[in-house]
């Protein structure tokens, strides 16, 4: 059997398609993402740099996000932080309390499916380089939503800054009812344990949570992510 044509087809037909997809991911990141996202690190180390940041840091995206979620989100982006990345620049005094000035909030560009897959394939290669993730640290378990909410609100005060369902909770931080759809469990544990280890100037305080609380919060976020809030 003459395998020459098959080899030629692989070399000049199919393989370049894969190569092109990889190149597209890098090209899209450089051309469309880099102006708002830090692809190389480090995270902001000054308050001015924190203020200047336009979108989430992506240099450890492969340790942070769930790829399926990212691929879907990039095709249909929805706001995750009600008051944007740096809330002080998107608020104004209101009659009852300060309000979000939605007019100034940027809208994330929409990618088509091949673009989203190419970008995510590239982003998933960017892993945490500082050993902050302990793989397999999260041990799946369960907690009732009622108990989880009690912990999240009354015991630890996290509801002050995070929404636990659309329109209910704080506005300055990212919503947590989609957290388990978006984020890898081991990342959530690590980030909640020490937010400043990931983002030295971020306005999320270190609550000095117990290890058992970290696990329970992830149980809670996973339970919330199964609720239908649409």
């Amino acid at each position: 059997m003459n395998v020459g044509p098959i080899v030629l087809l692989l070399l000049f037909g199919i393989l370049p398609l894969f190569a092109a997809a990889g190149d597209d991911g890098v090209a899209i990141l450089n051309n469309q993402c880099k102006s708002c996202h830090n692809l190389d690190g480090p995270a902001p180390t000054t308050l001015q740099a924190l203020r200047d940041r336009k979108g989430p840091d992506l240099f450890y995206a492969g340790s942070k996000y769930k790829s399926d979620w990212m691929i879907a989100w990039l095709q249909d982006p929805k706001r995750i932080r009600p008051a944007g990345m740096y809330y002080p620049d998107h608020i104004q005094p209101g009659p009852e309390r300060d309000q979000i000035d939605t007019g100034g909030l940027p809208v994330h560009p929409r990618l088509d499916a091949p673009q989203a897959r190419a970008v995510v394939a590239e982003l998933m290669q960017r892993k945490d380089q500082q050993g902050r993730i302990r793989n397999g640290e999260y041990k799946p378990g369960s907690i009732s939503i009622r108990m989880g909410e009690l912990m999240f609100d009354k015991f630890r005060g996290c509801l002050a800054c995070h929404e636990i369902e659309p329109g209910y909770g704080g506005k300055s931080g990212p919503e947590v009812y989609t957290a388990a759809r978006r984020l890898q469990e081991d990342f959530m544990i690590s980030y909640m344990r020490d937010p400043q280890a990931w983002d030295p100037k971020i306005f999320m305080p270190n609550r000095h949570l117990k290890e058992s609380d970290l696990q329970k919060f992830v149980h809670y976020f996973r339970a919330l992510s199964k609720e239908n809030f649409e």
Partner: protein
Amino acid sequence: MNGLQSIRWCLLVLALGGAWFASGANAAERADLIYKTYCWQCHGMKGNGMGINIRDMSVQPRDHSDAKEMSSRSDEDLFKAIKLGGRAVDKSVLMPPWDGVLSDDEIHELVKYLRELCQCSHGRSH
């Protein structure tokens, strides 16, 4: 002391005074930026406790412009509340500890900033 020495002493005093004034101004600017970044979310843009986060809170944040209330707190209490959180001063858990983000020096600067906001000191309003 001759005339030239007098001039040198005057210049030295002016330089030291200028540096002292500038460091104070820098500290005040730093405290202002820290307050905006970390405190506005709950205590509000005017420091009156009317931040964007407050609607669903079970306990409302302190109004930092309330001289009567703020003058009932010592500087040590304010420092402790910022550093270790509300629970450390028998207040709400909604006030988190900021020791993971702010240094002791920055928290001392914030306490001074709060005294400017309330126009008060411990035991008396200005």
